[in-house]
């Protein structure tokens, strides 16, 4: 019985990891252009790093890494502040029209992002941050999903904690800083993962905002050699480039795996 379920898990794990395995194998395959066995999962011997060299030369990856890191960190930093405060306001403060405002806020989740490209681009241009990393970050500084998540988390924390802190003379900001946020840590971490992954991988919006090569993010750098229309794909190089782009995320996930899984379980996001 145990062996059977272990076997089933093994099969599922293999299915799930097949694309990743293929990427690793293909990226190490020498001379993959038009190769017959490019679809194979069996590694070629001896492996070659030629694809990585070509991919690395195809884009300025160090600069792209720096830009993506700035976008991801800058977006998340502001988001954590705005969603905590907004979540608190919707969970605890009483003001007229609170629920209406909250539902209006949630409506944002229903709008498909491409619809907002032109209006957002106009705003970004008017603010003078077109073709800057600020322009890439700005539209995400308020997050409906994050606000919703924090509101629900705060609602789940008993008021007694806040009352006790208030009796001890805490101000509102102190209550938030020393009582509520530490208790909401799993939700904050879960939101951080969702935010980092989605902005790390985002392509369309940076493509719209960025013109200068010096402001390109990783996805734009990768696109310079994977988009194929009339021509054809160098699979090995694409695999190597994708690996270069996604490696830090993989490394981060493996390093903090346990914490991440705990956060998702505790915050109820799946």
């Amino acid at each position, binding site marked *: 019985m145990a062996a059977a379920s272990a076997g089933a898990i093994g099969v599922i794990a293999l299915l799930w990891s097949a694309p990743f395995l293929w990427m690793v194998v293909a990226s190490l395959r020498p001379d993959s*252009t*038009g*190769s*017959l066995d*490019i*679809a194979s999962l069996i590694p070629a011997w001896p492996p070659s790093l030629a694809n990585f060299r*070509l*991919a690395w*030369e*195809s884009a300025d990856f160090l600069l792209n890494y*720096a830009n993506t890191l*700035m976008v991801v*960190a*800058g977006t998340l*930093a502001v988001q954590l502040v705005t969603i905590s405060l907004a979540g608190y306001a919707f969970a605890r403060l009483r003001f007229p029209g609170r629920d209406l405002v909250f539902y209006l806020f949630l409506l944002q989740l229903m709008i498909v992002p491409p619809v907002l*490209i*032109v209006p957002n*681009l*106009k705003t*970004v*241009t008017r603010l003078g941050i*077109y*073709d*800057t*990393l*600020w322009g890439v970050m700005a539209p995400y500084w308020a997050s409906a999903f994050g606000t919703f998540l924090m509101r629900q988390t705060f609602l789940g924390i008993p008021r007694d904690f806040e009352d006790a802190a208030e009796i001890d003379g805490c101000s509102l900001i102190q209550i938030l800083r020393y009582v509520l946020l530490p208790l909401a840590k799993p939700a904050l971490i879960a939101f951080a993962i969702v935010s980092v992954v989605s902005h790390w991988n985002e*392509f*369309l919006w940076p*493509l*719209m905002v*960025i*013109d*200068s*090569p*010096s*402001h390109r993010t990783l996805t*734009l750098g990768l*696109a*310079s*050699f*994977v*988009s*194929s*229309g*009339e*021509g*054809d*794909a*160098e*699979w090995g*190089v694409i695999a190597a480039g994708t690996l270069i782009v996604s490696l830090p995320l993989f490394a981060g996930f493996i390093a903090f795996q346990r914490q991440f899984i705990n956060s998702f379980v505790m915050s109820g996001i799946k």
Partner: protein
Amino acid sequence: MTSLSRIMLAGLGALLSATVAASAKTTIDFYFPVPVQGALAREMTRMVKEFNDASSDVEVVAAYTGSYDDTRLKTQAAVEAGKPPAVTLMSANFVQEFVISGEIEAIDDLLAENGGDPKTFLDDFWPALRGNATANSKIYAIPFQNSTPLVYINVGHFKEAGLDPTKPPATWAELVDAAKKLTKRDGDKITRYGFEMPGSYDYLGWLTQAFTMSNGGQFFNVTSPGEVYYDQPSTRGAVQLLHDLVFTHKVMPEGVIDPNQVSSDFFAGKASMVMLSTGSLSFIRNGAKFPYTVAFVPRNVRNAVPIGGGSLIVFKSITPEQRKAAWKFVTYMTSAESLGSWSRFTGYFAPRRSSYDLPEMKAFVAEHPDALIAVQQLAYAQPWLSTYNVVAVRKAIEDQVQAVLSGKKQADEAVRDAQKNADEILRPYNEKIAHVSGF
């Protein structure tokens, strides 16, 4: 957090000051799609750098902008946001839309300002390219990289099936016949397909147009951007041919195949004949480890194919200095030398006839005679589908042909539905030109 934002500010500040230092030159933006793999993006960057190094007063910032469709989206969004690029390399059949919306400069005006002659300017370009470069008797785009569909043939398979590779199929009947002989079956399973072609968006519309034209028809009204001829016998026949290749003769795989799959199958010997762009020629030349040959698109009634590829367009609402700079850049990019070198690098044919008179081009063609097939086919080439809201109009037929390739629809119904949907998409334009009262 604070130290992080300080680093970010410092970084941005450094970048800003770098741009200010370089602004003694007039800076212009140039958007280009990357329709092929990375090597091309590197070559394009090299060409732009060469121009910037040689130019004392113009600095071109080249931004690659994804696929042809992404480039159109990005350009349109940038125009609406008030940040138009100076120059874009745009899919040749999207030009018409920018003419309708009045966002691009007539090349005629730029020529007149710079001592050129609009009447003779296009004479050096292949006649087939002129249709997609002009609108209402004015030039709006300068062809840069162009293509036609070609049939790539595995010579070994041809000989093995008793076919003569020096006489590739010239008609639809010969195509079907050859494909039947080339297809290998193992019981019900097909181990090698006689013919394959991409069925993905953009490619499928182009190839359907090629078959419609070689069936004697026209795909769209070349002079009025509000009319397409999908529900016509010629288009119906083309779609029927695709249906029969898959379901009657079983020589082409069922369903929608993307271009990478088609070339991979060709390389792997799983497809004996494939229909792809001339833009794939360099890739096939480098990737095929066996003898291959290239042939015209077979005809049913006549030899005819649409052109493909991209052209340079110049945008309005840039400063007068940028306008001058844009013209200098476009002139450099479309010189016979630049176009020839780009053509040798990519496999696209050079739009200027004089490119082929250059010594380096003559040497190249002598070494790779297959590079000339696309050029010879140009004698039979005509403009590419170009209408109001062209992507949606193209998808209207592509969705239907995909349904046919997947066995969900018959050709009759498919072309009828395609026409109905396309007419709906074209209605705003047609209502505007049909009701002209109120002058």
